């Protein structure tokens, strides 16, 4: 937010100032009469900046309460009950959590406060609501003063400030938490220096009576003033054992919070307004209805920012896409050029093929396809060579039936598990001289199978003279040789080596 409209409401005056670029414009004062209200209405029509209303009124009440720790809807209902109990007659009320107790039931310590004379505010508020002014909040001088004591290392601090149109504001902070505040009018025949001496002591006694200031504890009084008033105060204020005075130079304080204004006297109104403009607290007296148009104003700003962000993101992404696309196009051009060169070279090679019996592609197709088909039908001498040599080494084996099938002889579905270059051989035969003993005979067959495997046949025994596997059955007459031949069947798979 660049410009802000800051309104200051006290018992004696209502003024408006524009805050821009870290400084406050000249104040415009509106008397509390019909003319003043019309002038205020006209003023509001000249600006659409958000409005912050700062009140500095005697009729502001503070209550420190300890309540049961609750959350969500239950907490909201609890607070509402407290509002109805303490501040039924004003809509300008707030509840702030101080801290959660660390012992016992872990209750919450809360500060309830309210503007107890709502009519003072409502008059001006009605004008703002009528004109749909974006009111950001209704604040109070004590409520926004906390940043002024942040750097003070003391548990019990009484901050004194003077607002010309309001009076002497005394705000008590306990461990940096606002506890109470009071406003004392300063008469026209008085200076605020005159009032401080008595009022500070009164406040100290009041705090003691509320047991907020422990026995023996020193109350540090920090006074916002200029150099001249400081000299006067230093001569008037006497430090006692339990009260000490410190002086906060108003000009330095202003510089510390970033104010560009010059403070000619100790009037802290401008200081507080600058503080409100730069560090508005979250909690204030306005309710949802009061700040409705501010929420709309803020939503509109956010929508505008969102649209800027959206447009920027879309443009950036689009540029990225365009850049990537251009890179791809550049790369594509190079690839096309390379491919062209290769294709030209290929064409030259093909055209340079000598005159043939047929086009080179046809000759290649015929030769390569026949070479492949030839591999599916190897000649029998190749397939049987190993088998024949092995049979010669095992003369007790008599082959009764031999069949083999090449890859070309198998339909595609029969080739599952076999390479088309594999030949499958089935041999059925007999083992003679079984009465040599079944164990010796089985060993003989076993050695035959091993010999075939060494000659690169894969061997599967389909049937043996004696099935000694766990899934087979054995009859005792099979164990007797009687010179009868024992039958066997083997399946061999032979494959061409590349």
């Amino acid at each position, binding site marked *: 937010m660049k410009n802000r409209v800051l309104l200051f409401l006290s018992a004696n005056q209502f003024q408006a100032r524009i805050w821009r670029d870290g400084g406050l414009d000249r104040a415009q004062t509106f008397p509390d009469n019909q003319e003043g209200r019309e002038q205020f209405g006209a003023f509001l029509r000249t600006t659409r900046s958000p409005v912050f209303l700062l009140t500095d009124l005697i009729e502001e009440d503070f209550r420190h309460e300890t309540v049961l720790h609750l959350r969500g809807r239950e907490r909201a209902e609890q607070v509402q009950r407290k509002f109805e109990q303490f501040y039924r007659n004003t809509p300008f009320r707030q509840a702030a959590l101080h801290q959660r107790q660390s012992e016992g039931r872990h209750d919450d310590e809360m500060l309830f406060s309210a503007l107890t004379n709502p009519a003072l505010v409502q008059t001006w508020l009605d004008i703002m609501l009528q004109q749909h002014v974006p009111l950001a909040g209704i604040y109070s001088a004590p409520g926004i003063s906390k940043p002024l004591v942040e750097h003070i290392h003391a548990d019990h601090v009484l901050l004194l400030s003077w607002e010309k149109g309001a009076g002497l504001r005394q705000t008590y902070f306990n461990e940096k938490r606002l506890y109470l505040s009071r406003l004392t009018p300063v008469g026209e025949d008085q200076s605020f220096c005159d009032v401080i001496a008595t009022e500070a002591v009164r406040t100290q006694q009041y705090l003691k009576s509320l047991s907020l200031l422990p026995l023996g504890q020193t109350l540090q009084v920090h006074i916002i003033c200029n150099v001249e008033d400081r000299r006067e105060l230093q001569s008037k204020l006497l430090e006692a054992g339990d009260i000490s005075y410190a002086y906060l130079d108003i000009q330095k304080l202003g510089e510390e919070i970033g104010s560009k204004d010059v403070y000619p006297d100790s009037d802290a109104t401008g200081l507080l307004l600058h503080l409100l403009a730069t560090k508005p607290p979250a909690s204030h007296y306005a309710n949802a209805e009061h700040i409705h148009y501010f929420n709309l104003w803020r939503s509109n700003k956010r929508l505008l920012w969102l649209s800027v962000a959206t447009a920027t993101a879309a443009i950036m992404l*689009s540029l990225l*896409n*365009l850049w990537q696309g251009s890179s791809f196009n550049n790369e594509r051009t190079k690839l096309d050029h390379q491919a062209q060169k290769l294709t030209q070279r290929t064409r030259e*090679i*093909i055209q340079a093929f000598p005159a043939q019996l047929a086009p080179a592609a046809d000759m290649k197709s015929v030769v390569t396809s*026949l070479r492949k*088909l030839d591999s599916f039908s190897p*000649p029998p001498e190749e397939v049987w060579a190993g088998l024949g040599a092995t049979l010669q080494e095992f003369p007790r084996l008599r082959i009764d039936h031999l069949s083999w099938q090449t890859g*070309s002889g198998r339909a595609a579905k029969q080739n599952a598990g076999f390479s088309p270059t594999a030949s499958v051989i089935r041999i059925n035969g007999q083992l003679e001289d079984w009465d040599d003993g079944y164990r010796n005979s089985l060993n003989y067959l076993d050695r035959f199978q091993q010999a075939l495997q060494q000659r690169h046949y894969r061997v599967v025994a389909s049937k043996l003279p004696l099935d000694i596997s766990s899934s087979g059955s054995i009859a005792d007459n099979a164990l007797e040789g009687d010179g009868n031949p024992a039958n066997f069947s083997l399946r061999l798979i032979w494959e061409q080596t590349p």
Partner: protein
Amino acid sequence: MNKLATDLHYIKWGLLALLLALGIGGAFLLLSQSFLDSAQQAHHAAETGLRKAQHDLSTATSDQQNMADYTQEYAMLLNRNVIGKEQRLDWIDGLERLRQRNIVLGFKYVISPQQPYQPPEAVDSGNFSLNRSDMTLSFELLHTGQLVRFFKELRTRVKGWYMLDGCSIERLDNTEPRASAGLTPQLRAECTGGWLTLQNRNAP
């Protein structure tokens, strides 16, 4: 409704700006994305084209190196009448010459009509269709060596290309009636296969 209309009045510029940003930004994005997609596709196509060109060059270079072999083998296949229309008289003549050489004790054959041939695994035959005329052979043999020699002679001395699918050989008991006089056959064999020819699809 009135309150809503009033509220909308205060955020109308923000909403409008957002709609514009979404609309115009979205349009830019769509157009640029479309440009990127086409460029990417074209790039991918160019990569594919380059790979194909590289492959074609590699193939052409390999063919250049192998062309002498291809020419020689093709000439041999032409000479054996494997390419073009099948020459059945060549097969019959060849088989009869084999019969006269008495490689086996006796044999018979049956040649079936020509059919298109589907090999057990796909073969790229280019412009040529594969055809086969199945032929079964029955033999009476003294020993398996005769069968081996028969098919060796069939390959080397008979014009054509015979693909042997397999045989079944059985030991005979000598009480069975025999086809040939003189020597007693010990084995009977049944063999299947076919005569393969390649026909150019573009030939008249």
